[in-house]
C-alpha cells in the first residue's frame, strides 16, 4: 500500500465541510506513514460570477447583497487560512509531515495530486440554516480523476460510514474494500 500511495492529498475549499476531510486524511497519512498535503481551491466559477455586473448573493444574516470579486477573494483568504491551521493542527496531532498550497481553478480540479496520491475531500457543503445543503461539486471529481479518492461525510449524515470510491483498479485491487477506512468519524 505504502509503495503505491506516496502522499495524502486533501481537497479544501470555502464552501465544503472540510474538518472531517482533514482529520480523516491525517489519520490515513499517519497509518500509511505518508506526508499530508492540503490543496485549497479558490473556485474560479465563483470569481467569474462575482465579475458579472448583476452578481448578488442571498444570506440568512443580511438577505440580498452584492457579490464582488474582492468580497469573494477576502473570504477565500480567510477560509484558506483557517484550513491551513486545521491541517497543521491535525498533522501535529498525528505526528506527520504536512504541506499546504492554494490554487485557483474549478472545484473539480484535475490537477489535484499525482499518480501516487490518495485524494480525500469533504462530501457535503456547509448548510444554509440547519437543513438545506447544496450538492457538493466534489462528487464530480469521481468522474474525472483517475486516482484513489475518498469522500468523507459525517456520522449524523451518513449513519456512521464513510463513503469511499476508488477509480484506480490497481489500488482497489491492492487495498480492497476491507481495508478502506470504515470506522466511524472521530
Amino acid at each position, binding site marked *: 500500500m505504502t509503495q503505491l500511495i506516496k502522499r495524502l492529498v486533501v481537497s479544501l475549499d*470555502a*464552501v465544503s465541510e472540510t*474538518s*472531517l476531510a*482533514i*482529520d480523516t486524511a491525517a489519520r490515513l497519512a499517519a497509518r500509511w506513514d505518508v506526508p499530508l498535503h492540503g490543496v485549497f481551491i479558490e473556485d474560479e*466559477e*465563483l470569481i*467569474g*460570477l462575482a*465579475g*458579472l455586473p*448583476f*452578481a*448578488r*448573493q*442571498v*444570506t*440568512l*444574516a443580511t*438577505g*440580498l447583497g452584492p*457579490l464582488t470579486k474582492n468580497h*469573494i477573494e477576502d*473570504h*477565500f483568504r*480567510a*477560509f484558506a487560512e483557517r484550513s491551513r491551521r*486545521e491541517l497543521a*493542527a*491535525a498533522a501535529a496531532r498525528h505526528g506527520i509531515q504536512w504541506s499546504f498550497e492554494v490554487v485557483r481553478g474549478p472545484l473539480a480540479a484535475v490537477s489535484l495530486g499525482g499518480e501516487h496520491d490518495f485524494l480525500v475531500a469533504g462530501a457535503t*457543503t*456547509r448548510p*444554509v*440554516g*440547519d*437543513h*438545506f445543503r*447544496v450538492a457538493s461539486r466534489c462528487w464530480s471529481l469521481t468522474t474525472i480523476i483517475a486516482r484513489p479518492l475518498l469522500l468523507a461525510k*459525517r*456520522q*449524523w449524515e451518513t449513519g456512521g460510514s464513510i463513503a469511499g470510491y476508488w477509480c484506480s483498479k490497481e489500488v482497489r485491487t491492492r487495498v480492497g474494500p476491507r481495508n478502506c477506512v470504515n470506522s466511524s*468519524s*472521530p
Partner: protein
Amino acid sequence: MATTGISRSYREPGPGGAGSASAEPGCPLPAALLYRRCDSTDLPFELVSELGDPSGPIGQDRAVEAVEFAVQMRRKGYNIYALGPSGTGKHTVIEDLLRQRANSMPTPPDWCYVNNFTDPQQPRRLPLPPGRASGLREAMRRLVEELRAALPAAFERDDYRARREVIEQQFRGRNEQAFGELQRRAEQRGIAMLRTPMGLALAPRRDGKVLTPELFEALPEAERQRIQRDLEEVQGELEAVMQKVPQWEREHREAVRELNRNTTGAAIGLMMDELRAGYCDLPDVVQYLDAVERDIKENADDFLPPAQPREGMPIPAAFEEAITGARFRRYQVNVIVDNGGKHGAPVIYEDNPTHQTLVGRVEHIARFGTLVTDFNLLTAGALHRANGGYLVLEAQRLLAGYFGWASLKRALSAGEIRIETLEQLLSLASTVSLQPEPVPLDVKIVLLGQPLIYYLLSALDDDFKELFKIAADFDDRVERTPETTLLYARFIAGVVRREKLLTFDRSAVARAIEHASRVVGDADRLSTGLRGIVDLLQEADQVAVGAGKEIVTAAEVQRAIDAQFRRGDRVYRRLQEEIGRKTIRIETDGEEIGQVNGLSVIALGGLTFGNPSRITARVRLGRGEVVDIEREVELGGPLHSKGVLILSGFLGGRFGKTRPLSLNASLVFEQSYGGVDGDSASAAELFALLSALADAPINQSFAVTGSVDQHGRIQAIGGVNEKIEGFFDACHITGFTGRQGVLIPVSNIDHLMLRQDVVAAAAEERFRIFPIETVDQGLSLLTGLHAGEPDGEGNYPAGTLNQRIAARLDAFAAKAAELARNVAGMEARK
C-alpha cells in the same frame, strides 16, 4: 493623738477555725490571725470520692439567675453578656445551664440550599424536619443517576427515533421542496444555484458552466437583458425562501423540544411522583421537586451523550468530565445544617468568630483558570448551626475577628442570616456573586468576656444595649462559710472524677481551700477562679503520681503550690539576692532619719510578689511644697501622685493652722527604676517625711504598707500578704534580729493568709505584724517616741514627736520671715 485605738476583734469561724483571737492596734498580731486554717477534721469525709458533685456553680447565684432568666425570655434582644474575670468558670457554667435548657427544647429543622431554577444567582433555602435533609440529598443524587441511564435509553428507543425522524423529514422536506422548486425553475431558465462562502448566489450557465464575464459581454444585448431579468426574478424568489428559513428553523427546534419534553416527561414521571410522595407533607419540597421536573424536561439534552465535536478536535477528558459534572450540580441538595440524630436544641461554641465563620461563606472552585461558584459551595456559619438554640462566643475574639461583631449585630437586628462575601458586605467587588435566600434566625447569643469589654460596649455601642440586655456578672470570689467550704470540696470531688485524678483526702482538700483564700488575698473569701484551682489539683495529682502515692494529701498540694511559685520566681529571687548582696540597699536593722522601708507588689506573668523599697525624705526651707521625685521624672502614676499630694494636705491640716509651712520636702523611692503607682506607700512616705521633720530616726527593722488620708487615718491596701512575705524574705536574707516586722492597716487584718514560715516566725515572735489605724500609732512604733496629743491651743507636749515637728516648722517659718525681712531691707536700700 493616743496610740490606744479601737480594739478590733477578729472572727475565726468555719471549719478549721482556730478559735477567737483579737487584734489591738499598735500591738503585734497573734499568729492565729495571720492565717485562717481550714481544719480538715471538720470536713465530713475522708476521701473526696465519698462526695457527690456540687449542686451548682460556686458563688455565682447572681450570674446563674441572670442566665436562667435570659434563656427563658424568647423576646428579641435578650442575649447574654457573661462578664467576669478569666478563669471563673463562665464557659462551663454557661454551657451547663444552656445544655440543661436546650435538652428540653425541640430540635430545630435541617437547612438546605437548592438551585433556584428561575434565577440561579439566588439559591433557595429549604427547611426540612430534622434528619430529613440528608434523605432528600440522597434521593436527588439517585434521581440524577437514574435519569442519566433512563433518559438516554428513552431517546434511543425506536418510537422516539421514529418520531424524531418524522420531524426531521418534515422540515428537511419543507426546505428541499422550497429550494428544490426554486432550483428547478432556475435551471429551466439556465440559471445555477451556487453555494458561496456566506450564502447562495445565482449564476447564468451555458453548457454546464457558469458564464464568465467575457462570454456574457459577448452575448447579444437582448440576451443579456433577458438573463439579467431572469436572474433578478429568481433572486427575488430565493430571497423570499431564505426569509422563511429562520422561522422554519425555529419551528423545527420547538417541535424537537416538544418531542423531547414529552419523551422526558414519560420517562421521569413515575420517578418524580415517587419522590414527591415521600415529601407530600412538605409543600416547599414538593414545590422544589416540581421545579426540578420542569427543568429536566426543558434540559433533557443534558442527560444525553454529548454530540460529536464538529471540528473533529477531541475534547480533553478532564474538560468533558468537568462539563458533565457541572451540568448536574444544579440538581444537588446542599445540606448546610443536618440536625439528624440530635436531641434538643443545639449549643454551639465558636472559637473563631469572624464574619465568615458566623454567617457562612460562599466558596469557589478553580475551573480552567477561573473561580466559579454555585449554591453547592455555600457553607454554613455558626449562626446556622446554632439556629434554634444557643451560640456561645468569646467577646474579645469576636471584636478582634474580621467583621465578626458587625455581622453578628446585623444578623441579630435583621433576624435572619444572609450569606454574603466580605466583598459584597463592603461593596468592594462588582462581580456577580450568589445572593442566597436568607435563613430566618432564632438564636440566643451568649458572649463571654472581661467586665471592661462589657462596660466599654455599654458606653460606646448603642446596638449592644439593644441586643444584649442581660448581663450575667460572674464574681471572682465567694464568702468563706461552712457551706461554701463544703461546696468547694464537692467541686474538687467533681474535678477529681472528671479529670480522672488520684483521689484527694480531706487534708488535701483543706489545703486547696486555704489556697483558694490566699489566691483572692482574703481570709474570709474563696476564689471562684476555678481554673487556677483545677490546675493546682492536676499538678498535685502529678506530684503524687511521681511519688508513687495513691492518695493526694496536703503535702502534695503544698508541693504543687511551692512548685508553681518556684517556676515563676526567678525575678523575685534575683531581687532578694541583690538585697542580700547590698546591691539593692534595704536596711533591716538600725535607725535612720527620714528613711523607711516601703512595700510594693510586682505582678509578672502568673506570679505576684512583694518587694521592699527604701523610701527617703529630705526637708529644707521652702514654700510648703512636697516634691514627688517619681512624678517629676514621670515614673510615678497618678494614684501615687495623689497619695503624695494628700501628705501636703495632712501637714497643712495638722501643723499649718498656726504657722506658715515654710518648707520644701522631696520624697523618693530609692533604687527604683521602673514605674510606681498606687497609694499604698503613702503612709510610709508620710512617716519618712515626718521623721525628717522631727529629726527623729526610724527603726529600720520595720516595713510599712498602707495608704493615708488627709486626717492621718491609715487605709487598706492590696497585696498585703505578698508585701509582708517580701519583707520577711528580705529579713531572712539579711538576717533575722527578732525585732523585725511590718506595719499594716488594721483594715487589712481580714486579708491575711500568710505563708506558714511567716506564721511560724510570728508565733515565735521572730517577726511581727503590727496593725495600725493612725499615723500617730505608726510613728510611735517606728520611732519609739510618743506622737503627742495637742492641747486646747494646738500645742503638743514637750518631747513628743509632733512637738518636735511643730518646732522644726516654727524654725523654718522664723527663718523664712528673717530672710523675707532681709530681702525687703535690701530692696529698700536699693
